[in-house]
C-alpha cells in the first residue's frame, strides 16, 4: 500500500492537522508520501520532511499553486494518484474544496471526515451532525479520504525524509484568485488550542467578546462562536464552531451564552471537559456540560477572569 498525504499549509507554516492525517495514514499502513503544493513553500517542505513515519516529501512549487485553487490542484493530485492506492487530506476548507474533485477525476467515491480506521478499506465517520456514527466500507480500488483531525493524535516530528521537487505545472486556466480577507489574531488556532472559550447570541454584540480577552490570555485559549453570533456579525465566520464550521476537541471548552443546538454540539462535544455559562437553567447545553453555572454572563465573566 502506498499513501499520498496532502499537506495543509499557507506556504509558510505546516498545519499541525497534517500530523494527525499522517497518523490516520499510519493506521491504514504503508509507505507514506507527503505532498506539498504551493508557491515559495520550501520551509513547509522542510518541516514536512521531519514528520515521523513517512518515506518522502514531494513538492510542487509554482505560482499556479500559490492559492491552492481546486481546479489546478485537483488535476495535479489526480495525476500523481496513479502511483498511490490511497490519497488523504485533512477535512479543513482546502481539503474539502479540492478532494471531491480529485475523487471524481479518478472515478471513485470519497469517504469524508473519517474519525477512525477499522481496516484498509473500512472507516468510521459521523453523520447527521454526529448523532449517528457510520462504519463505511469502500469498494473502490483507489481510496480518496478526508480526515477529521479530532479523531487522531499527531505523530512526532523528529524524522528526516528526503525531498523531491516536481516540475509539472498545471493551470486549468478557468479560475483565479482575487483577494483574501484573513482574520488576524494573536491567539492560538481553534483547531490546536487546549482551551477554547466560545460565545453565542447571549453575548449581544461583538464588543462584548472583549470580555473573553483577559480569560483567554490567562488560559492560552482560542476564541470561538456559535453560528448565531457569526450570523449577527459579532465575530468573523472562521470562528464558527459546529457541524458546518470548525470541529474542536480541546481539554476544556467553555460555552458562554450558547443554548446548545445539535449543530453546535456537533463541533465540540468530544471536548474533554465542557463548561457552560448560561442564564437559562433549561438550556440544552447543560445536558452535555461537566460543569454548568446558571448565571448572567456579564457578571460571571469578570468574576471568572479575577478568579483565574
Amino acid at each position: 500500500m502506498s499513501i499520498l498525504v496532502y499537506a495543509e499549509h499557507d506556504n509558510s507554516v505546516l498545519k499541525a492537522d497534517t500530523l494527525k492525517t499522517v497518523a490516520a495514514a499510519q493506521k491504514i499502513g504503508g509507505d507514506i508520501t507527503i505532498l506539498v503544493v504551493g508557491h515559495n513553500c520550501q520551509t513547509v517542505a522542510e518541516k514536512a520532511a521531519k514528520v515521523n513515519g513517512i518515506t518522502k516529501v514531494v513538492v510542487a512549487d509554482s505560482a499556479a499553486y500559490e492559492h491552492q485553487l481546486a481546479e489546478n490542484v485537483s488535476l495535479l493530485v489526480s495525476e500523481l494518484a496513479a502511483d498511490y492506492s490511497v490519497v488523504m487530506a485533512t477535512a479543513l476548507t482546502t481539503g474539502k474544496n479540492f478532494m471531491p474533485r480529485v475523487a471524481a477525476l479518478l472515478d471513485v467515491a470519497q469517504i469524508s471526515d473519517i474519525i477512525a480506521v477499522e481496516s484498509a478499506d473500512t472507516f468510521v465517520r459521523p453523520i447527521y451532525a454526529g448523532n449517528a456514527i457510520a462504519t463505511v466500507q469502500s469498494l473502490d480500488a483507489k481510496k480518496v479520504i478526508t480526515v477529521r483531525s479530532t479523531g487522531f493524535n499527531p505523530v512526532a516530528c523528529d524524522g528526516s525524509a528526503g525531498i523531491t521537487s516536481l516540475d509539472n505545472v498545471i493551470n486549468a486556466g478557468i479560475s483565479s484568485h482575487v483577494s483574501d480577507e484573513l482574520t488576524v489574531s494573536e491567539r492560538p488556532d481553534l483547531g490546536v488550542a487546549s482551551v477554547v472559550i466560545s460565545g453565542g447570541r447571549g453575548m449581544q454584540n461583538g464588543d462584548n467578546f472583549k470580555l473573553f480577552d483577559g480569560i483567554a490570555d490567562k488560559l492560552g485559549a482560542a476564541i470561538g462562536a456559535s453560528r448565531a453570533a457569526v450570523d449577527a456579525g459579532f465575530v468573523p465566520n472562521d470562528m464558527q464552531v459546529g457541524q458546518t464550521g470548525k470541529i474542536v476537541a480541546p481539554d476544556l471548552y467553555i460555552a458562554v451564552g450558547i443554548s446548545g443546538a445539535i449543530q453546535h454540539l456537533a463541533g465540540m462535544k468530544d471536548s474533554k471537559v465542557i463548561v457552560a455559562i448560561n442564564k437559562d437553567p433549561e438550556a440544552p447545553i447543560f445536558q452535555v456540560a461537566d460543569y454548568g453555572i446558571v448565571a448572567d454572563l456579564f457578571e460571571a465573566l469578570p468574576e471568572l477572569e479575577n478568579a483565574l
Partner: protein
Amino acid sequence: MKVLVPIKRVIDYNVKVRVKSDNSNVDLANVKMAINPFCEIAVEEAVRLKEAGTATEVIVISIGDKNCQEQLRTALALGADRAIQIETDQNLDALNIAKLLQKIVEEEQPQLVILGKQSIDSDNNQTGQMLAALTGLAQGTFASEVKVEGEKVNITREVDGGLQTVSLNLPAIVTTDLRLNEPRYASLPNIMKAKRKPLEVKSAADFGIDLTARTILLKVTPPREREAGIIVESIDELVEKLKNEAKVIS
C-alpha cells in the same frame, strides 16, 4: 442566463435522529423532512439573481423517490420556474448523484449551478465539487457572496482563515455557505401557484450511467453519550473544580 439548483430532501434540521436498534441505519420513519438548509439558501440565491434580472430561468432538480417532489414544490413556491425529479429508490453515493447532474447540465446548459455545500444527513460535502470535476467547470465552494460580472463570476468563500475571493469563468459551479443569504418563506399564493408549475419526472435508469454503489454502509451506531455533569453555585467553585477535580487548568 439559466440557473440550475440541485436540492435534497433531508431530515428537518431541528430533529435529533435516533439509530435503529438493529444498527442498520438511522430511523427515518415518521420523521419530519425538509429541503436541506444549504439547498434552500441555493434556491434563494438563484431566485434573487432572477429578480435582479441576471438570471432568466431557475430550474430545480432533485434525485430521489417520489417524496422529493414535495421539496421540489416548495422550491417552486419560493420562486423557481420549473422542476425536474430524477426518480430512484437507491441511496446513491455523491459521485453517482454528480454523474446524473452532469447529464442534466449537458441537456440544459445552465450558466450557473448552485448547490448546497453539504447535506445535513450524510454530511458529505462532495457533490458540487464532483460535478465541477465531471463537467470541467470552475467551482466556488462555501460561498458567502456571488457576483456575476459579464463572462465571469466573483465568489467570496468562507475559508478557515477568514474569507477568500476567487474569479471563475462562466459557466461555473457554486456551493452555498450559511451567510450567503437568508431564505424567504413561501407565501400562500405562491404555494398555490407552484402547484401549476411544470415538474418533469425522469428515471435514473434511463441515463445509461452505471450507478453501482461504491461504498457499503456496514453499520450505524449511536455516538458516545455525554452524561450531564453538575451545576456549580459560584465561579469560585467552578475554578476550584477545574483545578482540582478535572485538572484542566493550573
